[in-house]
């Protein structure tokens, strides 16, 4: 193993409401949904109609511009509805689940001997392909690309995130099988980064991949940060990334021939009760996990973590890539300026700024709500983002280039290396409340349209 890469700039956001390391079975959701919106910039082409019977692993829709990529159902059941939004855009495909699952048969007879194109078609046919994302752009990978390497982050450093050492414990075989398949896709091989080089045996003992050691605060676990420090992406290069838990799903499918997208979802956040890891399937309804587990009213339910997740209600469905649900109080109340508003003493309020006393107790776990704590302003304070942005990239200048649709400068300043999630901390600590994740996403969209 190579030397430990030390991330110095960053911030561990210590929040109240960690999930216990206990696994519970979530009740089977009545409806499971795959939301095309989870796959950024993908246009779905429906394969099924309302009323069709499907099995777990049956194709629901395909990527309209790459008809080889299948998006499949998590469960067996009946297609209940295809929810459309503005301009008839498909928002969600709902499958009413049968009591038990029947599975599509996936041919795994020669999985061990596949070449690159064989591995690609195996992943695309079986509906596993969407787990592979690409950098730049942070969208589902394009099969025709020749990636420089494949990166897997072996830990999640975001607030209250599930611990992979726990969720992947005992999945040694599945994880290894996943790596073996991914290894066929790129000549550059598979890179796996572990926190301080140590981890559960399932990850630590993985073979056929290069293991890196990374230490430091969030966003050390962001795969973009790891790529930047191991082998930065230049213009024209492409890297694929897969979430460690999804590697195990890929592996399990390759071993069993059945598509079983199991998720261990961590229920976290100050307002969540029975904070445990719930075993369920991708696309489950949020309600099947949070029902009866919410404390009080007026809460924000987040599919994912507080930095990058999506705002949902208990009628919505778990995001495709998410393995965490966070519940925190809404902050939709006025705060009097001297008591708990902008000029209060502010004990116990989360802030990285020394203008609040909270920095004195670094290990304290904070209660937070969703109040914006101010209004959006122009950039005034400088060298703020740099404190939590461990790239050799000038973050404010890049955000400004993105705001002004300046493709030339975005390219020069390193847009190819970043994803919106890398700017989540910048957004969190911004005095001027600039929506940098959204700006970067729009910048990437423009790059995708004009340059890729």
């Amino acid at each position: 193993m190579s030397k430990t890469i030390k991330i110095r700039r960053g911030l561990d956001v210590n929040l109240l409401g960690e999930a216990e390391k206990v696994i519970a079975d979530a009740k089977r959701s009545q409806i499971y949904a795959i939301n095309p919106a989870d796959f950024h910039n993908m246009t779905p082409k429906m394969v099924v109609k309302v009323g069709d019977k499907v099995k777990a692993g049956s194709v629901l829709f395909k990527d309209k511009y790459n008809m080889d990529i299948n998006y499949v159902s998590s469960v067996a059941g009946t297609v209940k509805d295809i929810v459309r939004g503005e301009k008839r855009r498909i928002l969600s495909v709902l499958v009413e689940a049968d009591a038990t699952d029947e599975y599509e048969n996936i041919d795994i007879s020669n999985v061990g001997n596949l070449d690159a194109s064989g591995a690609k078609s195996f992943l695309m046919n079986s509906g596993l392909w969407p787990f592979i994302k690409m950098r730049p752009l942070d969208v589902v990978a394009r099969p025709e690309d020749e990636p420089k390497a494949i990166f897997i982050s072996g830990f999640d450093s975001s607030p209250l995130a599930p611990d992979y050492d726990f969720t992947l414990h005992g999945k040694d075989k599945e994880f290894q099988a996943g790596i073996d398949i991914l290894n066929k896709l790129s000549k550059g091989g598979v890179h796996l980064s572990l926190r301080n080089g140590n981890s559960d045996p399932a990850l630590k003992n993985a073979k056929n991949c290069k293991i890196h050691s990374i230490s430091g605060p969030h966003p050390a676990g962001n795969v973009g940060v790891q790529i930047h420090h191991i082998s930065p992406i230049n213009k024209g290069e492409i890297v694929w990334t897969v979430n460690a838990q999804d590697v195990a799903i890929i592996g399990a499918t390759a071993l069993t021939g059945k598509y079983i997208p199991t998720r261990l979802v961590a229920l976290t956040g100050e307002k969540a009760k029975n904070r445990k890891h719930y075993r369920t399937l991708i696309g489950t309804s949020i309600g099947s996990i949070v029902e009866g587990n919410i404390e009080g009213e007026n809460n924000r339910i987040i599919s994912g973590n507080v930095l990058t997740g999506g705002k949902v209600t208990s009628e919505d469905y778990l995001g495709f890539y998410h393995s965490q649900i966070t519940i925190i109080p809404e902050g939709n109340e006025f705060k009097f300026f001297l008591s708990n508003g902008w000029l209060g003493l502010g004990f116990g309020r989360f802030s990285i700024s020394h203008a609040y006393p909270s920095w004195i107790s670094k290990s304290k776990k904070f209660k937070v709500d969703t109040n914006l704590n101010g209004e959006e302003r122009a950039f005034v304070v400088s060298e703020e983002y740099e404190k939590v942005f461990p790239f050799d990239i000038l973050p404010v200048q890049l955000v400004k280039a993105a705001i002004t649709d300046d493709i030339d400068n975005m390219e020069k300043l390193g847009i190819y290396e970043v994803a919106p999630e890398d700017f989540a901390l910048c957004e969190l600590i911004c005095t001027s409340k600039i929506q940098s994740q959204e700006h970067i996403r729009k910048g990437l969209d423009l790059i995708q349209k004009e340059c890729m």
Partner: protein
Amino acid sequence: MKFLRNIFDNAHHKLNKSEKTKKYFPLVDALDTLVFTPNHTTQKGAHIRDAIDLKRTMMFVILAMIPCLLFGMYNVGHWHYNALGETSTLLDNFLYGALKVIPIIAVSYAVGLGVEFIFAIKNGHSVQEGFLVSGMLIPLIMPVDVPLWMVGVATIFAVVIGKEVFGGTGMNIINIALTARAFLFFAHPTSMTGDNTWIAGIKGMKENTAKIKELADNGKEIPQSLLDSPQLFNYGTADSVDVVSGATSLGDLATAKAKYEEAAVALSKGKDDVFKSLIEEGDKVASKAVSLSDTFWGIEPGSVGETSAFAALLGAAFLLWVGIASWKVMTSFFLGGLSIAGLFYAMGGNPFYEVDPIHQLMYGGFMFGMVFMITDPVTAAQTSTGKFFYGFIGGALGILIRMGNPAYPEGVMLGILIANVCAPTIDHMVIRANVKRRMKRLKTA
């Protein structure tokens, strides 16, 4: 709280009733958001946000200015009574100073915020907080006897030309408060520099004293009303006018420097006696410059808040403690000034250059500029490396203009303004270096 909240809710409700009144939304909104942090929640991106906002940041800068302000008030009174030759208590000094300074603050805020409100209503955006700091900085860098209408005009100029034409808070290129000062400095130099501006009431004192002297010299009767005038040097000591020149230490030193230069010319023409008397005169003027300890604590005439290096350093300690001002800019500004002052000190040749470099930096507005002006994040360089260059340029130019330029006895204002103008170029260089690094990686890869 509930009661206050209802008032604002009512006001918003009434404003929203008709299209005509809707545009006055920023007026109510500004007050509302001042009293209540709004109930806005995150809708996109990160769901939680840091508790810090621009209002708190700005308010902390104002807090940091309080030592300068309070000491400034005291100092105004101190020099006023000193010029009158009267003894006064600390409280007398402070109260007199407050009476002189508070109107300037009031005018600065009223005019500046007025302009901000007009632009907010016209452009339909909410009022941003930038002027909260500028409005306090402007009075602190004005001579105490500046006419209030000038403060008003300068503030309008600074806010409109310095900021709003560029798009408001966060968009300006040069420091707002210094724009106001520079405007007056060039438009009304007699009210901004010289011997008659730094001590409250000194102009009237000088005029009245001169009148009495003239009447007495001509053997005429002096009207009692003139003798009773409060604006009068203590007539018992007729020399007061000479004793209290009203110039700042820097003014005295610049005069001394000029005398030495004249002396050098005289010497080259072989006029030895003229040379000697000029040198003597120069030394005499230079000796009026205050000592290091006085200028450190701030017991000298000058702009309202700038005289005390100690008060400025208290502010600096606070700003660095809360992490709002950049230590990089402050340190490099100090080093920039120190290196130029050191250079002139090594060169020597006249009393101005021969001031100990540290002593030199304590004079005038250098320390105040270092803490509150050059550190303005909007007009400073934004990049980490850029900040070192930016600060150094500001400090070096400030002292260079102060010591090298015969026209202005103080150069810190101009030094900082020039550094402001250079900041985007400095940033551009730093950004280009970063871009180059990435390009190089592409080539080697």
